[in-house]
C-alpha cells in the first residue's frame, strides 16, 4: 500500500519528456480558414454555427482532409497529420463525392507544387503540367480515404448508441490503423431537435424512467463525449444550423415554445454580435451550450462587391474576437478574402 502510494507520487517523466509526449499525442493541426484564427487542440469543443446553407460541412471536409493526409508522401510535402477522423452524420446528407473531389484536388495541387518546383528549370512544357493536373496518386488517395471514418444516425437513440460504444470503436480503429482518432466531427448537433422536443420528458405510464427528451439526450451526449475525451483526447468539431434572426424565424420559434409549457424554460436566447446586432437564436439546452469551448458564426454575405465569387463572413463568438473575416470557398479549399 505504502509503496503503491509512493509510486503514485513519484515523478514519472521530465518536463522535456512530458512536452515531447504532449506534442506527439496532441499534435497541432493546421485548420482551414476561417478556423485558423485560434489555436485549437484536442479536448476543445468547437461549434460552427450558421444558417443553412453556409458552407459549414465544407469547412469540416477541409479540416478532415488536413488531418487524413500524411505529412509527406513519396517526397512530396502534404502537411497533413496522418491521423483518423470520425464523422458522425446526424443530418444524413453527407456527400462523399464532394470529399473525394476535394481530396483529389488537394493531392493534385500539392503534387503540382512539388513537381513544378523541381521541374521548373528542366521542363516547362504545358503537356507536363497538364499531366500533373489530371493524374493523382491513387494509392495516397485510398490510404487517406481509409482514415476517414463515417457513421450516420437517423435519430437520437442511434446517436446515443453510437456515443455509448464510441470508446470501443476508437480502440478498435486505433489497433487497426496504428494511429488514433484526432478529429471527432458531429454534423449537425441540432438535427433531431424537433423530434426530441416532441418526446415527453417523462414517458407515460412509467415511474421514474427517462425518455429521449431534448434535455436528456443533450445531458447524456455531453456526458459521454466528456468521458471519451478524458481517455481519447480529440478535437471535437461540430456544426449547428441556426436561422439568422429575421422576423419569420423568430415567429416560428416563439409560436412553438409558447405551446409546450414543459420546456418553456428553454435556453433560447438571442445571440448578439460584437456590433450588438441580433445574430441568431440559440436553441440547444444550456448543458450543450456550456460544453462548447469555442464558437464561430459563419454566414453567406450579401456583398455585391464580388459578384462571381461566393463570399462568407465569419466571426468568433467564443472567445469573442472582434475580428470578422471574409472567406471564399472553391474546390481548392477555403481562402481568406482581404
Amino acid at each position, binding site marked *: 500500500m505504502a509503496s503503491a502510494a509512493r509510486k503514485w507520487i513519484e515523478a514519472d517523466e521530465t518536463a522535456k519528456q512530458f512536452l515531447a509526449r504532449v506534442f506527439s499525442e496532441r499534435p497541432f493541426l493546421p485548420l482551414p480558414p476561417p478556423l485558423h484564427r485560434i489555436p485549437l487542440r484536442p479536448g476543445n469543443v468547437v461549434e460552427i454555427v450558421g444558417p443553412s446553407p453556409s458552407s459549414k460541412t465544407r469547412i469540416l471536409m477541409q479540416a478532415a482532409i488536413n488531418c487524413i493526409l500524411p505529412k509527406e508522401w513519396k517526397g512530396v510535402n502534404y502537411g497533413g497529420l496522418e491521423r483518423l477522423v470520425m464523422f458522425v452524420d446526424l443530418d444524413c446528407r453527407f456527400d*462523399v463525392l464532394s470529399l473525394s473531389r476535394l481530396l483529389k484536388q488537394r493531392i493534385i495541387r500539392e503534387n503540382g507544387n512539388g513537381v513544378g518546383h523541381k521541374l521548373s528549370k528542366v521542363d516547362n512544357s504545358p503537356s507536363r503540367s497538364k499531366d500533373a493536373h489530371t493524374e493523382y496518386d491513387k494509392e495516397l488517395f485510398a490510404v487517406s480515404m481509409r482514415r476517414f471514418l463515417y457513421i450516420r444516425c437517423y435519430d437520437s437513440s442511434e446517436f446515443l448508441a453510437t456515443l455509448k460504444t464510441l470508446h470501443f470503436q476508437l480502440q478498435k480503429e486505433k489497433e487497426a490503423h496504428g494511429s488514433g482518432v484526432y478529429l471527432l466531427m458531429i454534423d449537425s448537433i441540432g438535427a433531431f431537435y424537433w423530434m426530441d422536443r416532441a418526446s415527453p420528458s417523462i414517458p407515460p405510464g412509467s415511474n421514474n424512467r427517462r425518455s429521449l427528451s431534448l434535455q436528456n439526450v443533450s445531458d447524456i451526449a455531453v456526458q459521454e463525449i466528456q468521458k471519451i475525451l478524458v481517455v481519447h483526447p480529440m478535437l471535437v468539431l461540430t456544426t449547428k444550423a441556426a436561422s439568422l434572426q429575421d422576423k419569420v424565424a423568430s415567429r416560428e420559434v416563439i409560436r412553438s415554445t409558447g*405551446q409546450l409549457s414543459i420546456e418553456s424554460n428553454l435556453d433560447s436566447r438571442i445571440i448578439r454580435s460584437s456590433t450588438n446586432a441580433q445574430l441568431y437564436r440559440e436553441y440547444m439546452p444550456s448543458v450543450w451550450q456550456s460544453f462548447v469551448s469555442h464558437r464561430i458564426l459563419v454566414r453567406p454575405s450579401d456583398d455585391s462587391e464580388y459578384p462571381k465569387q461566393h463570399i462568407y463572413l465569419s466571426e468568433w463568438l467564443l472567445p469573442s474576437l472582434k475580428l470578422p473575416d471574409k472567406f471564399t470557398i472553391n474546390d481548392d479549399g477555403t481562402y481568406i478574402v482581404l
Partner: protein
Amino acid sequence: MAALMYLECGYPLIDSDFRNFCASHNIISVEDFLLHDLYVLVISTEQHHNSERLKEGITQVLTIINKQHQPWVDGQELLDDALQNKRFLPTGCRSIDTFLHGGLREGYLTELVGTSSSGKTQICLQAASAVAKSWGKIIFLDSGNSFSPKRVAQIVTQTSDLSAYEVDKALQEVMNNIVCFSVFDIFPLFEVLHQLKNNLRSQKDQHIRMLIIDSISSLIAPILGGGAHGHALMVSVGFLLKRLAHEHDISILVTNHMVAGEKGTSKPALGESWRSIPHIRLLLSKDQISNISSISVLRHPHMATGDRVEFAFQ
C-alpha cells in the same frame, strides 16, 4: 426498443437477477440503458454479491447497443457504394440533366421549389416517364390529383421515335412501372412510407428506382404551427425519406409550393426547419411571357448557390 425480459434467450447473462438489478435503477428496456450513466451503474454493482456477473451483463447489453447504430464505414467504402450503387436518373429534360451533372441521383432527396404553375408537376411527370421507360419502378405519391396518365402517355409518345406498335408497348411498360397513390394527409403518408420500407427490406418490392411526392408541402404545411409536434412529424418524414433513399438506392423527388412572404415576395411553404433536410434544393420559375423556364440552385452539395439553367418545356 426491446424490453430486457425478452432478450434472455439470445443473451443468457440478462437473467432475472440482472433484470432485477436493472429494475432497481429504473431500467427496463435497452433504450433505458442509453439514457443511463453506465459508469455509475458499473460502480453500483459493487453493492451486490454477484457483481462480476452483473458487470458481464452490462457488457452484454453494450454489445446489443452496438448493433443499434448504423455500421461505421471508412471513406473508401462509402465512395465505392456511391460510385457503384448511386446512379443518376434522367429528369426527362436533357438540359436539366446536363445542368445537374447527370440528373437526379439515387440516394439523394431532391426538392423542387416553385410557385403554382411554374412546372413542378410537369417535371415530376417527365422524370417519372423517363425513369419508368428504361430504369425501373416509380412510386408516385399524389396529394392533389396532379398525376395524369394522359400526360404521361403524351410525354412518352412525344419523346420516342418508334412505330405506333412499339409506342404502344413502351407505353404499357411505362404505365406498369408507375405506381400511383393518392395521399391527402401526413398519416397516410407515413403509412405508405413505412409499408414501402418493410417491403424493400423483405425484398418484396424490387427495382424501385424513384419516389416522387407531389407535393410534400401540402401534406406537411397544415400540421405546422401547432407546436413542436408538427415540426417533429416533418423532420421524421425527412429522415425516413433520407433513410429509404440511402439504404435502397432510390432517388427521391419532392415538391414544395410557395406562399406569400413579406413585402410581396414569395417563399417556400416549408421554410426554416425544413431547409436543412433535402440534399438538393432547386428553385423552378417560369417567365409567363416568354414561356421560358429556369432552374436555379438553392442548395447543392457541390454546385454553387445561384447557378442557373434555362429551358423550355416540350
